[in-house]
């Protein structure tokens, strides 16, 4: 059977899923068979007839093959007819590069046909192998278009308009300012009650979660999940709320609920020894010498430690907030007044929104939340993560910034609220302003 009399092969189709790569055999017998198939040589007797009865021959004869092209055509081959090109390419390739000899691309009408053909071609006596190249082609990096691509519109977080605090601290203004960088690679440690790692607004946020208590990693009270959401809930994902910074390297260290003193100490050491850059401590109580020892060690290792002032409405110090060089945070309300529960004292650094703060809570019922997924809470615990997130943004803008530089930026950039001039034991150096702080570094 000769293909000379058959209609020319149809125009090649563009989709690689319809392609099959074949490698023709380069043995003398196989090459002769192929020349017969192409009508270049007279029909043989004996073994060389195999090609004319093989799968490839019948596919071509039935018009099932849309095109056949050598993978590495030479100028001489481009002038030949399709089937001739394929056959002649074997001879040419053999002379130049044995490894590439006989490589051709066959194109079919559909992916299904291509896949069916693969199996049959692999049984053809003239073909060394045949395979479907789709996956390999997809794995190649996409070439960048020189034309400017349109970005898909960001999905607005539906509860964003209830996050009054983000407006107060001028997060949007900060994000538009020159030099703003998201804090995606800043490592933030949260020692708290754990997290709900399955929360849809915290997906991909945590790189490590460990329990230092006798309980599971899971957050049973909801406190740690709330704090974490304020720091890094995923923004513009069309779900829930927006986080203050977009750190994707949060480390959740569970030491509360149930509280374990030795677990808490171990959590501080873990944070110190595992590259945590800024540590959120939305917790407190009386003075504890071992805690102080570990916090001082953390500070010496360059960890920036931020703690809640406490919620007793008292001027008695709460620890670790009152430990020297710990950044201590009080709480304000929607009108920039001091929250009536916020502790005061000479060790206070600044205040941040801490009343009616909407954030993530576990997706399952938890001890402190009145609902699942999202809830609004008050507390200096809620003010602290706003400062922590701002420090992460400062470190993203200026990697390697020292604690002193960070404290100076926070304090100088703060808004003077409540008739504040300079420093007060109630407001510290003022209410957090993200844009103001970033402008200072």
């Amino acid at each position, binding site marked *: 059977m000769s293909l000379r009399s058959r209609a020319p092969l149809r125009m090649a189709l563009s989709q690689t899923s319809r392609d099959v790569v074949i490698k023709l055999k380069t043995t003398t017998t196989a090459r002769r068979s192929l020349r017969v198939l192409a009508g270049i040589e007279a029909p043989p007797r004996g073994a060389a007839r195999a090609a004319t009865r093989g799968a490839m021959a019948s596919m071509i004869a039935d018009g099932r093959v849309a095109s056949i092209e050598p993978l590495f055509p030479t100028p001489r081959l481009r002038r030949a007819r399709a089937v001739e090109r394929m056959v002649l390419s074997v001879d040419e390739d053999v002379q130049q590069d044995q490894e590439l000899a006989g490589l051709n691309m066959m194109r079919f009408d559909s992916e299904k046909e291509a896949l069916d053909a693969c199996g049959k071609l692999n049984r053809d006596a003239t073909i060394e192998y045949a395979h479907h190249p789709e996956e390999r082609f997809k794995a190649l990096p996409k070439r960048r278009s020189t034309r400017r691509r349109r970005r898909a519109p960001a999905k607005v977080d539906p509860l964003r308009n209830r996050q009054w605090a983000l407006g107060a601290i001028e997060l949007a203004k900060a994000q538009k300012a020159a030099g703003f960088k998201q804090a995606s690679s800043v490592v933030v440690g949260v020692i708290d009650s754990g997290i709900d790692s399955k929360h849809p607004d915290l997906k991909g946020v945590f790189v490590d979660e460990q329990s230092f208590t006798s309980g599971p990693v899971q957050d049973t*009270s909801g406190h740690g999940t709330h704090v974490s959401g304020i720091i890094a809930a995923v923004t513009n994902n069309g779900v829930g709320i927006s986080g203050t910074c977009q750190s994707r390297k949060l480390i959740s260290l569970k030491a509360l609920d149930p509280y374990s003193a030795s677990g808490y100490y171990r959590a501080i050491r873990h944070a110190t020894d595992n590259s945590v850059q800024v540590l959120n401590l939305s917790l407190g109580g009386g003075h504890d010498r*071992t805690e102080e020892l570990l916090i001082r060690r953390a500070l010496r290792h360059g960890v920036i430690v931020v703690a809640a002032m406490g919620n007793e409405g008292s001027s008695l110090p709460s620890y670790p907030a009152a430990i020297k060089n710990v950044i201590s945070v009080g709480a304000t309300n929607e009108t920039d007044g001091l929250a009536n529960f916020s502790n005061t004292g000479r060790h206070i650094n600044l205040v941040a929104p801490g009343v009616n703060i909407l954030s993530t809570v576990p997706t399952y019922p938890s001890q402190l939340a009145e609902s699942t997924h999202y809830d609004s809470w008050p507390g200096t615990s809620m003010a602290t993560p706003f400062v922590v997130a701002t420090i992460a943004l400062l470190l993203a803008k200026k990697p390697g910034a020292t604690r002193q530089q960070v404290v100076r930026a926070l304090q100088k950039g703060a808004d003077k609220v409540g008739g504040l001039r300079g420093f007060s034991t109630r407001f510290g150096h003022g209410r957090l302003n993200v844009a103001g702080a970033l402008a200072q570094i």
Partner: protein
Amino acid sequence: MGLRFPLPMRWRRNPSEPVTDPKILMVKFARSGDPAKQQEKIRRLVGENSVRNADQLFPDDSDDELATLFEVVLSEGASLDQAKASLDGDDDVEYAHEPVERSGR
């Protein structure tokens, strides 16, 4: 959702209330030494029958500051104040204290 009383007031027992059950003391030696001997010293000072466990808090740490920390769990009926006084009175002991509970604020 909505404004509620700050969490700790309804959640915590007492801001400065020490952890009392089981009775635990954190002990720090002033200088590094053989942990086994330091453990033995704790037992001797407090009284063998009054100590349930005396373990290094960070047994894997070679840092002197951390390697000299012990968590001492007292036996049922042992006096915490008495144990603390015995430990505090020794020159090798830098401090002994009850851990103070931490809670979310």
